[in-house]
Structure formats: C-alpha cells, structure tokens
C-alpha cells in the first residue's frame, strides 16, 4: 500500500516538471529572439505609397494618398540597412522596416498553434482558450463575409441600387433599377432569423422549405445525369479490348472485366430485396471484396491528406516562427 501523500507528491513533482519545462522553453525563445542572429519571427515590410485621383460627391477633383504594406524578406531589410549605413541609401519612408503588428501576429499564431497541439497531452485551459477564440472568430468571420460578399451586392444592391452605389458599391451599374421581387428573399431571410426568437420558431420553416426544395430539385436531375446515367455509360467497357488491328490488349481487357464485373457485384451487394444466397450471395461476396479494396485505397489517400496538414503546421513553426529552416532562402544574407 502506497503512503497516503504519495499521490500528492507525484502531482507536485509533475507540476514542478511542467513549470521547469515552461521556464526552459520561454528562456530558449527569449534567447533565440533577442540574442542570436538573425533571431526569429520578425516580419519586415515596405510602405508603398498609393496616390489616386478621385472626384468628391460635389464634383471637386481631389487626390487621395495612402500607403500599402508589402512584405519583404529579411534579406531585403539587411541589405537596406547596410546601404543606409554606407550612405548609399536615404532610409526613412520606402525603406524596409519591422512590422510590429505582423510580428506580434506571428507570435500569436504560434501560441495558438501550440495551444491547440497541447490537447494531445491532455485537455487543458490553454486549449480551451484557443478553442473559444476559434469558435468566436470563425462565426463572426463567416458572418462578415456573407454580409459584404452576398447581402450587400445581391440584396441591398438589387433593392436599393442608388443607395448602394452612393455608399458601398460605387461600381454598380448606373442604369440599375430597384427590383422589388427581391423583397421575397429579404422577407424569407428575416423569417429565417426568427429561429432565434423565443416563440414562433415555426416561421423559419418557410425559408427552410425553400432550402430543402432547391436542394431536392437541383440534385434530383443532376445526380441522375452525372452520377447515374454517365457512370453507367462509363462503366460499360469492352470485355475484349483491342489495342490495334487484330491485337488483343490483355491488360486492358482484364482491367475492363474487373470494372464491369466488379461494378455489378458491388451493386448486387447493395440490393437487399432478395436474400444474398446462391449466385446472388457469391456475387455479393465478390462485391464486398471489391469494396474492401476500395476502402483500403480510400484509407491510404485519407492518411496522405491528413499527414500533409501536419507537415504544413510544422513548417510554419520551424520556418515562419522559429526560423530554424529556410526553404525559400528568405533569410540568406550575403
């Protein structure tokens, strides 16, 4: 029997180890960022001036100027600094500079990435924090996109084109007239939002019914044409393939036989109106085997797809954040 405070000691030891690891990691990051060359995780930009002539609503011509940030590699910054030090360049506006907002952004991205990965150890407050931020930002992100990309041009732009043109979409066709038929989707949209109301949620059934009806109508015909008729046509292949005159292509013939027989057997497996016995049972069994090979291939492809996403994140941490690798040679300075 273990001593009564053994679990407590072990918990304390575990906490101490974690604190020590955290302190070591922070010390490493501070050292790498501040005391090594070229350091880590800094984004440099060049301010590109933009000057455009425009006309104010009262007809007066005016020039408008602003700057746009263009990211440049470390190399460009170092060369610029050298030129300034040597007196061959003026410096100031137009020279590469450190972008604090983008640099802080990269550190924040790395923090969020590691917070999500920390779930692999176990669920913890950092992961929960990152998850909470993710949910909030992505919901709002989609709302903003839906508003500016669709509702403003396709609803407000159709119902009140003059107002839209005068404010947010000056590029709208000047001849556009209000199309009041678009009050229908506006009304249906408001009804859809009624789902959030404490009472009368049945009102949202009308726009939902439109959703369902559109999907059903679209898919009925196109699935029939693309996935039924065309696939049957594609599946009917010559069982004896001829490569050239009087020459049988055995490889292609074999592949075609697998294709035709395999498709029929798989479809037999999906046919449940009769019991799978006798010839039907054997065909169904072959169908299962073909499907298992298909699923094995699907698994292989799925694994490939998942792993590369991890590779991309590791690349971000090692390249964009820690500056431990430089595949694009952005930090190679002569």
């Amino acid at each position, binding site marked *: 029997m273990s001593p009564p405070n053994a679990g407590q000691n072990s918990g304390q030891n575990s906490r101490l180890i974690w604190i020590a690891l955290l302190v070591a990691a922070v010390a490493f990051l501070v050292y790498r960022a501040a005391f090594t060359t070229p350091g880590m995780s800094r984004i440099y930009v060049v301010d590109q001036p933009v000057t455009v002539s425009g006309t104010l609503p009262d007809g007066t011509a005016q020039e408008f100027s602003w700057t746009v940030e263009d990211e440049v590699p470390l190399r460009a910054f170092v060369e610029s600094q050298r030129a300034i030090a040597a007196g061959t360049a003026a410096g100031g506006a137009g020279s590469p500079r450190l972008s604090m907002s983008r640099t802080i952004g990269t550190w924040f991205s790395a923090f969020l990435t590691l917070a999500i990965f920390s779930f*692999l*150890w176990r669920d913890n407050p950092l992961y929960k924090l990152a998850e909470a931020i993710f949910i909030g930002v992505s919901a709002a*992100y*989609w709302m903003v*996109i*839906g508003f500016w*990309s*669709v509702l403003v*041009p*396709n609803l407000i*732009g159709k119902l009140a084109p003059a107002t839209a043109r005068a404010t*947010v*979409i*000056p*590029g*709208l*066709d000047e001849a*556009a007239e209000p199309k009041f038929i678009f009050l229908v989707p506006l009304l249906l949209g408001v009804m859809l939002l009624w789902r959030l109301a404490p009472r009368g949620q049945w009102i949202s059934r009308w726009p939902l019914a439109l959703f369902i009806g*559109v999907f059903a109508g*679209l*898919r009925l015909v*196109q*699935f029939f*044409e*693309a*996935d039924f008729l*065309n*696939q049957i*046509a*594609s599946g009917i292949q010559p069982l004896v393939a001829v490569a050239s005159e009087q020459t049988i292509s055995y490889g292609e013939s074999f592949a075609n036989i697998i294709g035709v027989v395999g498709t029929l057997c798989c479809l037999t497996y999906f046919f449940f109106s009769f019991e799978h016995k006798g010839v039907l049972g054997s065909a169904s069994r072959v169908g299962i085997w073909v499907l298992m090979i*298909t699923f094995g*291939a*699907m698994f292989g*492809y*799925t*694994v*490939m*797809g*998942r*792993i*590369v*996403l*991890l*590779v*991309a*994140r*590791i*690349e971000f941490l*090692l390249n964009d954040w820690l500056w*431990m*690798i430089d*595949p*694009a*040679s952005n930090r190679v300075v002569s």
Partner: protein
Amino acid sequence: MYEFLRTLDRRWIFLLMLIAVTVPTVAGWQFPEKVSRNTQRAFDEIEKLQPGDRVLFSFDFDPASAGELSPMATSLTYHAARRGAKLYFMSLWPVGPQLVRETVAKVIKPEFPEYRYGEDYVDLGYKSGYEAVIKVIVTDFRKLYLTDAAGSGIDTIPMMKDVRSVQDMDLVISISAGYAGAKEWVQYAKTAYPDTFSMVAGCTGVQAPPLLPYVPQQLPGLIAAIKGAAEYEKLLNAKYDLLAKPAFVEGTRRMGSQLVAHVLMVLLIVVGNIVYFIGRRRGVTS
C-alpha cells in the same frame, strides 16, 4: 515488451508521428516523383491552352486544406498564366478569396508583372449557395456577380465584356477540399455542357477516390493529393525550369515528411496487429 505495447499510451504514438514529420522537414529530405497518368492528363489539358484562352479558377478550399492544395494552386496558376491565358478567379468557399489573393501575390505579381488586373486576371470573389451558384453562373454570370471582389462593376472590367457565363470559358479548374467543389463542378457544369469547355480538378486525398469515376469522360484531368501536387511540380519544373524557385517545389518538399510518416503508419498497423494476434493466442491457451 508485449505488455508495454499492449498498454501503450497513445501519446507515445503522437510523439513518433511528430518526429516522423519534423525530422525530414528540418533535414530537407526530398525524393524523386514518378508522374501518374491522371496528373499527366491534367498537365496536357493546360498545355493545350493558347494565349488569350479563358480559364476559370474556382478556389474551393480553406486554410485547413491549404497545406495540401496551395502547392497545386500555385502550380496551376503559374501554368495557365505561362500559357498566356486570361485568369478568372472565384470561390464557392467563404475563405477562398483570401487564398486567391495569396496565390496572386505568390505567382502573378512576382512572375508575371506584365499581367494587369481587369485585363489579364480578375477576382470575382465568393458567393454563397454551394451548387446553386454553379447552376446560375453556368448560364448567366451577371445574375449573381454584379461586381468583382473589389467592388468594381462587372461591366467595367474589360475581360468580362464578352463573358456571359461559364460556357464562355475554355477551361475550368476547381481546386477543391470538399463540398461544394470539384464534384459539384463536374455534376452541374461539365456534365451539363460536356463539349463547351474542358475541366481539370485538384483535390485533397480524401476527395480523390470519389472523383475517380469521373475521369476521364467527365473530368479530363485530376491532380490528387499532395503527391499529385508534387508530380505536377515535376512536370512544370521540367518544362519551364522552375527548380530554383522555392514556391514551385513546395509539394515536393512536403513529400519528404510524407514518406517517413507513411512508413510509420505501416509499421504501426503491423505492430498493432502483431500485438493483437499475440494477445489472442495467449488468451486462447491460458
């Protein structure tokens, strides 16, 4: 050893996967790629483009799949621009336009500085509605697209002047991570108008098997997964000598880690089964 493996904490497996991916990335391992028939078909479709041909790019993915699809988006955009095609970008996914902008910044701006916005390439932006968007634009762009992504009236854009619908395109390229994506483009556009334009798709590994039956009758070319992206880069680099440009070997770079991780997966399955069968035998005899 058997007991250790039987009760193995899955965090050890996580660590092995992390090492399998990190070490090749740090070491920069790259391996030669053999080009598959579907990728070659996709390359040949774009090689058929003539200067001035219209290519519609549909960026139907988000940052979650960008690790797999960005390399092929980069290669396809470069290839089409190199053939002198006019590029029309759009997206069925809300975050697609951001990825369009990243690809334009990575490919068009540095490699094709002569390309002018509105004359050689245009970003039409995102529209919600999944396959209903395709259903509308396959007969009339202007029912949905009144402006481009920047808010310029669509009729003020020179390269949109003679373009009424998707049927005026010479090639449609869907780079797709799921729904709505390449499958919907095949169903609602290519199958409905089989002889009007050609189509090529780039897709994730997960999406590749369901798209295979469409090849080649309904989908002339398919670039599947990061392997397909690496194969396409090989073809592109061989034809246009791009090996010195890191942006065009991204897929090839990622295949290094992919190989080690795949070998790890095979070993894990084998070891897992060995442990299972030993356990079954011990269970039977004891």
